[in-house]
């Protein structure tokens, strides 16, 4: 088990290293540098700014400096938002995204698992058909379509919910629904097929023959086994939630990390792009490792590689 953990962590770090290197060298493919988007400053100013931000040294030296600083927790200052460091910006924006994302994950799990289980239990009846229909629909419709439809119906026509920002609990409703729609649909499908598999197993028959109450049958035996594929889906789901936030945060003007990422790319704010990419990539990769380890703990049948 320790060997497995070590291997997973090792590959995670290796992947991260690749991502960091790719990101760094990609940013420097962009011609013009970060200062030429505004009115072209004089050459002297340009030289001074380049020297200040270390942009005039050879690429490899810049790379080395960056890595050394990064390992000490310094991602550099933001070039476009003068006076704030990258770490400051990330630490102010990430909690916002985390709140919305965390709520979405919770909603997806709390809704998807019961829906899928019901669809499996009442297979063939109309509730199964209804849940199937909604979930097929849910995995096809992109998140920005859902957000925009929600905004049209609930903000503009009915005027029940506010559109922009994140100041009251009401503000959370639509973004969370928009992000959680796809995972909920996916999880309910996954849960349904997994539950169908489990319910057909012999040990469920034994439980019923033993006279266990349906409640105990369901929770003690069926659910525990059926939930395993959902655990494998947790990793991709978190990645999806993070990337889904790019679009949803834009539409609902939420001051989160996704919105910041897109803006900093269009603004060519190199340190910000690098910092955000590394942060998001590290987050996803590490969470994947955690999920893998949890899965191995939960299902002892899996052989360690």
């Amino acid at each position, binding site marked *: 088990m320790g060997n497995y953990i070590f291997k997973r962590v090792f590959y995670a770090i290796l992947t991260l290293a690749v991502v960091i290197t790719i990101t760094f060298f*990609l940013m420097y493919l962009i011609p013009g540098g970060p200062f030429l988007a505004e009115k072209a400053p004089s050459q002297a100013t340009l030289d001074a700014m380049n020297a200040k931000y270390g942009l005039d040294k050879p690429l490899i030296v810049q790379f080395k400096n960056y890595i050394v600083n990064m390992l000490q927790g310094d991602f550099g200052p933001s070039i476009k938002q003068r006076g704030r460091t990258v770490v400051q910006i990330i630490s102010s924006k990430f909690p916002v995204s985390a709140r919305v994302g965390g709520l979405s994950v919770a909603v997806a799990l709390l809704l998807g698992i019961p829906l899928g289980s019901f669809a499996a239990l009442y297979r063939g009846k109309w509730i199964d058909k209804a849940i199937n229909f909604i979930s097929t629909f849910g995995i096809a419709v992109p998140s920005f379509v859902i957000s925009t439809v929600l905004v049209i119906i609930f903000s503009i026509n009915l005027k029940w919910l506010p559109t922009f920002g994140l100041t009251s609990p009401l503000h959370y409703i639509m973004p969370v629904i928009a992000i959680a729609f796809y995972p909920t649909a996916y999880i309910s499908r996954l849960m349904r097929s997994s539950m169908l598999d489990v319910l057909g197993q012999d040990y469920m028959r034994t439980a019923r023959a033993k006279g266990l109450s349906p409640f105990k049958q369901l929770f003690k035996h069926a659910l525990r086994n059926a939930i395993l594929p959902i655990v494998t889906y947790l990793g991709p789901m978190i990645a999806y939630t993070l990337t889904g936030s790019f679009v949803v945060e834009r539409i609902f003007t939420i001051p989160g990390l996704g919105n910041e990422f897109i803006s900093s790319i269009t603004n060519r704010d190199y340190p910000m792009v690098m910092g955000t990419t590394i942060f998001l990539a590290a987050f996803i990769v590490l969470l994947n490792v955690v999920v893998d380890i949890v899965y191995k703990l939960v299902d002892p049948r899996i052989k360690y590689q």
Partner: protein
Amino acid sequence: MQLDVSNFVPASDEEKQSLVTMRDSIGFWKDGLHRLRKNNVAMISLVVIVIVMVLAFIVPSFYPYDYKEQIRGNENLAPMGYSVKEQASIDSGDFVFPHFLGTDNLGRDLSVRIMMGSKISLLVGIIASAIIMMIGSIYGAVAGYFGGRADQIMMRIVDMIYTVPDLLIIILLIATLKYPLKDLANTNPAFAWINTVGVGLICIFIVFALLYWVGMARQIRSQILSLKEQEYVTAARALGASHARIIRKHLLKNCIGLIIVTTTLQIPSAIFTESFLSFIGLGVSAPMPSLGSLAATALGGITSYPHRLLAPSIMISLIILSFNLFGDGLRDAFDPKLKN
């Protein structure tokens, strides 16, 4: 109890025949197609796909309005509305082709733009899936067939690519590759087509070729792993067939069902990614419309012109949904495990 002797008489030949249930053996394709045809949902999705393809590829060539054509005076028309100039020509007897969905703020007809947008989305989806299919199936077949060390290394690489958060890298790649590609297009005349196609599209294709084939590779590999133990493979090897021939003629041919299904299911996710990227602004460049960018520009006028947002959104959802349902139907039809 009355026992009827005639019930115990040995059965005649005709009666024996009625108990024998034998179906004529049908080929793999006919069987699958037959099952597919019985699947109503899949058939309806197929019809929808065909309609969308006709709308996207054929109709714009015959449409009286061009997607780029900005007609002054026609701005911001409502669906089926006419501008002052057009109203005047209708009154004087000419026929003006109606704007079914109105026009946008530059006077361009919206329906033809949506059709062009669907064409772009479909093209991206199909070409990207074709790329993924080629790279993924060859990679997976080679890894599965040779096994051992080569397989281990290839699968390690697949795992690493799988872990990389792809959307992040796509966005990064598109944002950065734009410039060198534009330079290439402007300096070298052989690459001038880059400008017409749009740099964003090329980046999308490059990224798909680099990152998205891993799912297909994994599936093909596991299929090949089970197929390569079959006797005909041993026979072929004994007869001296080269590795390439075995992979090509025997193994991959038997994977065709899986390849078709996976590719069909890959198309909607490619379209999804493309519309997502266009929505953020990193996809095709103006004036070429994409369903995602149409939705993005319509976001600003959401209160006054909701139809501008609803139309491309419904179109994308329809395309993705029908491909998903059709792919599901294909999988149900051609999956031998479900044979009853």
